[in-house]
C-alpha cells in the first residue's frame, strides 16, 4: 500500500520531473511500515475533506478567530512562516498557539535536482527533526531564563539562592545545544540535505554528561517551586506569564522539564535516523556507536538521579531518639519505593523502602518544610518478615471507629514484622487499592531477595562485581524479576476465585507467559 503512495507524492512535489521507483527491496521493507509509522494517502485526505459534515461549521468559526490571533502572533516572531500547501485540507488547523512544526520536505525545495528514494527522504526528515528540535530547545531554555528567571530576580520575587535552586544549571546547557545545532548546520548542503551526522553525534554526545547535575537537582527544584507558589507574588507572576502569548500556555515547570524530556528522547531520535540509513552508508556504524554512547549516558544520569532523590528524602528524616538512627539508612543509595500507607488504627504513615532498610514515618511540617518523623525503629530488610493478609483478616483496633467500619476499610492489608533479640515490632499496613498493595509486596520481596543474594554470595561477590555493576543489566534483571513476581502473586490470588474466572485467568496467564518469553527475547536483542 505504501509503495503506491510515493509516486503520487513525488509527482506532486516535483511536477515535470520523471519518477524514480523505489529499489526492489523497498516494498519488502516498506511492508513493515503499517505496524510502526504509517503514511496516509493524499487522495484519502482529499476525499475526507469533501465529507466534512456541516456540523463543523460552528467550531470552524471559532478556529478562524483563534487562527487570526495566532497568525498575528506568529508573524511577529517567525517572519519566515511558510504558506500552506495547495492540496492540504480546507479545514482550519486546530486552535492552538503551538509552535509551528516543520518538515524537511516542506522547508527545502526537494524538486530541484533531486531524485530521492522514499527511504532517503525519511532519513532527511529524521535528521531535520533532530536539528529542529535543538533549535526549539535552545529557544525555550533562553525563554525560561529571560522571561522567568531574570525578571523574578530583578523584581526580588525570589532570592538569588532560591532561583539558583529552581533553575539549577539550566543556563549552562544552552551552549551545548548551540554547538550541536551549529555543527548540523555546517554539514547541511545548499540543497538542504545532510549526508553524515554520525561522526558529529559521536563527538558531541559525551558533553551531555553535564545533564547529571541538572537532572539530579529536579526533585529539590520541584519541591521548592511548589513551596514558593504559595507566595502570592510568585503565584501572580507565574499566572501572568501563563496568560501571555510567549508561554504558549505552558507553565514554568514545563520549561524546566524540557531538558530532561529531551534527554530521554535522544535514543529514539538517533534510532530513527539509523532505521532509514542504508547498510552501505558509513554513517550507520557511527550512528550505532552514537546510540550506545547516549544510552550509556542516560543510564548513568538515571542512576545518579535516583541517588539524588534518595539523598533528598534521607535529609528530611526526623529522628526522635538517637537510637533510631541506623547505619543502613546512611549507607543506602537506592530508594526502592515509598508512599503513603495506613496502619490498623487508620493513622497515615509514610513508608520508605531503601535498599536495605524499611523506614516507617509520619509526614510533618518542620520549618515550613515537609519532613518525615520516624515512627518506631527502622526494620532491616534482612530481618523483615512479610505477610500477605487476606481481605477482612485484620481487626481494626483501638477505637469506636472500628466498630462502625465497613468492609471497604478492611481490604488491602499486609503485615511487616521484625524480631531480633529483645526488640520486636509488628505493623499491619493498608494500601489504598489492590494494585498498590501488590506493588509494595513485590518491592519488599525484591529487596529481600537482593539482600539475601548479596549475603549468600559474599565470598564470590568480587568476581561478579563487573556483572553487577552495569546499570542497564541490573535494571533489566530487576524488571524481569518484578514481572515474574507479579505473575506469581496473581496465581496465588486466583485460588479464591470462581471456576469460570479461574479459566479466564488461566488464559491470561498463558498470554503473560508468552509475554515473558518475548521480553526475554527482547532483552537478548538489546
Amino acid at each position, binding site marked *: 500500500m505504501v509503495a503506491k503512495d510515493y509516486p503520487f507524492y513525488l509527482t506532486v512535489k516535483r511536477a515535470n520531473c520523471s519518477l524514480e521507483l523505489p529499489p526492489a527491496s523497498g516494498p519488502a521493507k516498506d511492508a513493515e511500515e503499517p505496524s510502526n509509522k504509517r503514511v496516509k494517502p493524499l487522495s484519502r485526505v482529499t476525499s475526507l475533506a469533501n465529507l466534512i459534515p456541516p456540523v463543523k461549521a460552528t467550531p470552524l468559526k471559532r478556529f478562524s478567530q483563534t487562527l487570526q490571533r495566532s497568525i498575528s502572533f506568529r508573524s511577529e516572531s517567525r517572519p519566515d512562516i511558510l504558506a500552506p500547501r495547495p492540496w492540504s485540507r480546507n479545514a482550519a488547523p486546530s486552535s492552538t498557539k503551538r509552535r509551528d512544526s516543520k518538515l524537511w520536505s516542506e522547508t527545502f525545495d526537494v524538486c530541484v535536482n533531486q531524485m530521492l528514494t522514499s527511504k532517503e527522504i525519511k532519513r532527511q526528515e529524521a535528521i531535520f527533526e533532530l536539528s529542529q528540535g535543538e533549535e526549539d530547545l535552545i529557544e525555550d531554555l533562553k525563554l525560561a531564563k529571560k522571561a522567568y528567571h531574570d525578571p523574578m530576580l530583578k523584581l526580588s520575587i525570589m532570592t538569588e539562592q532560591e532561583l539558583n535552586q529552581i533553575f539549577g544549571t539550566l543556563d549552562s546547557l544552552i551552549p551545548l545545544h548551540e554547538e550541536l545545532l551549529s555543527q548540523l548546520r555546517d554539514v547541511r548542503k545548499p540543497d538542504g540535505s545532510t549526508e553524515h551526522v554520525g561522526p558529529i553525534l559521536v563527538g558531541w554526545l559525551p558533553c551531555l554528561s553535564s545533564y547529571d547535575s541538572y537532572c539530579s537537582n529536579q526533585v529539590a527544584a520541584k519541591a521548592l517551586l511548589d513551596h514558593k507558589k504559595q507566595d502570592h507574588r510568585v503565584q501572580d507572576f507565574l499566572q501572568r506569564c501563563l496568560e501571555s502569548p510567549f508561554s504558549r500556555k505552558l507553565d514554568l515547570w514545563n520549561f524546566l522539564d524540557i531538558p530532561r524530556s529531551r*534527554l530521554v528522547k535522544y535514543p529514539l531520535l538517533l534510532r530513527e535516523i539509523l532505521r532509514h540509513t542504508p547498510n552501505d552508508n558509513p554513517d550507520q556504524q557511527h550512528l550505532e556507536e552514537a546510540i550506545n554512547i547516549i544510552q550509556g549516558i542516560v543510564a548513568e544520569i538515571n542512576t545518579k538521579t535516583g541517588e539524588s532523590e534518595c539523598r533528598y528524602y534521607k535529609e528530611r528524616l526526623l529522628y526522635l531518639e538517637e537510637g533510631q538512627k541506623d547505619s543502613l539508612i546512611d549507607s543506602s543509595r537506592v530508594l526502592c519505593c515509598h508512599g*503513603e500507607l495506613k496502619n490498623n488504627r487508620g493513622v497515615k504513615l509514610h513508608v520508605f523502602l531503601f535498599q536495605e532498610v524499611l523506614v516507617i514515618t509520619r509526614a510533618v511540617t518542620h520549618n515550613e518544610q515537609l519532613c518525615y518523623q520516624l515512627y518506631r525503629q527502622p526494620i532491616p530488610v534482612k530481618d523483615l518478615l512479610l505477610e500477605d493478609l487476606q481481605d477482612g483478616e485484620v481487626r481494626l483496633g483501638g477505637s469506636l471507629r472500628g466498630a462502625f467500619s465497613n468492609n471497604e476499610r478492611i481490604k488491602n492489608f499486609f503485615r511487616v514484622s521484625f524480631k531480633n533479640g529483645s526488640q520486636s515490632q509488628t505493623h499491619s499496613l493498608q494500601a489504598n487499592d489492590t494494585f498498590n498493595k501488590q506493588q509494595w509486596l513485590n518491592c519488599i520481596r525484591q529487596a529481600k531477595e537482593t539482600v539475601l543474594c548479596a549475603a549468600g554470595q559474599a565470598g564470590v561477590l568480587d568476581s561478579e562485581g563487573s556483572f553487577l555493576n552495569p546499570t542497564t543489566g541490573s535494571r533489566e534483571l530487576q524488571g524481569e524479576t518484578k514481572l515474574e513476581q507479579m505473575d506469581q502473586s496473581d496465581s496465588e490470588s486466583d485460588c479464591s476465585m470462581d471456576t469460570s474466572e479461574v479459566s479466564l485467568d488461566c488464559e491470561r496467564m498463558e498470554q503473560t507467559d508468552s509475554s515473558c518469553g518475548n521480553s526475554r527475547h527482547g532483552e537478548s536483542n538489546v
Partner: protein
Amino acid sequence: MKERRAPQPVVARCKLVLVGDVQCGKTAMLQVLAKDCYPETYVPTVFENYTACLETEEQRVELSLWDTSGSPYYDNVRPLCYSDSDAVLLCFDISRPETVDSALKKWRTEILDYCPSTRVLLIGCKTDLRTDLSTLMELSHQKQAPISYEQGCAIAKQLGAEIYLEGSAFTSEKSIHSIFRTASMLCLNKPSPLPQKSPVRSLSKRLLHLPSRSELISSTFKKEKAKSC
C-alpha cells in the same frame, strides 16, 4: 493585540500525560490533535509539549499535553513528567496483543508509584488495524487476533483504569478528538475517583505536595479535598 474584556468564566486547565510502549501510537495521536490531520509524509518521533484549547458549550478547557519516551528504562529520570498530572493516558497498540498484558502492568506500576491518586484512562491505539489484512494474517499465524473493544474494556477494569477509549489516528481524527474530549470531561466533572476506591484521597508519593499548615491540620480530620483543575 491585547484586548481588555469583561471578566471571562474561569478557564479550566488539565494536564494529561501519555505513556505506553515505544511505537504504540502516542505521538501520532498528539500530532492529529495538534494539526487536525495525520502526518502525511513523515510521522515525527518527538512531540513537543503543548496546550490545546477545547471549547464546549459551558466552558473553555486548556489541555496541557505531555508526551513521554516509551523507552522502558531510565525509571528515575523519565517519571518526573507525571508531576501535577490530572490524568494519565495509558496507551497500547491493539495490533500487538502479545505485549499488552506485561507492558500495561509495567506502566501501571510506574503510574501507581509516582501518582497513585491520578486518574488512569486506558487508550487503545491503531484501531484501523483490526481490519487490516496483512495485520490479521500475521497475527493468525501466531493464533492471535487484534484486541477487541470488549477485551479493552476488560483490561481497563482489571488495571483499575476509569474508562477504556480507543481510536485510530491514521483513519479517524474524530475518534482522537473524542478521546481527548472525554478525558477532559472526566477531569472536570468528577471531583474524585470512582466510589469503589478508598474514600480517603491519598497524597502523591514521590512528587511532593506541600500543604500549608491549615491544610495539614484539616487533612488530619480526614476532610476530603475536591480535586480541581
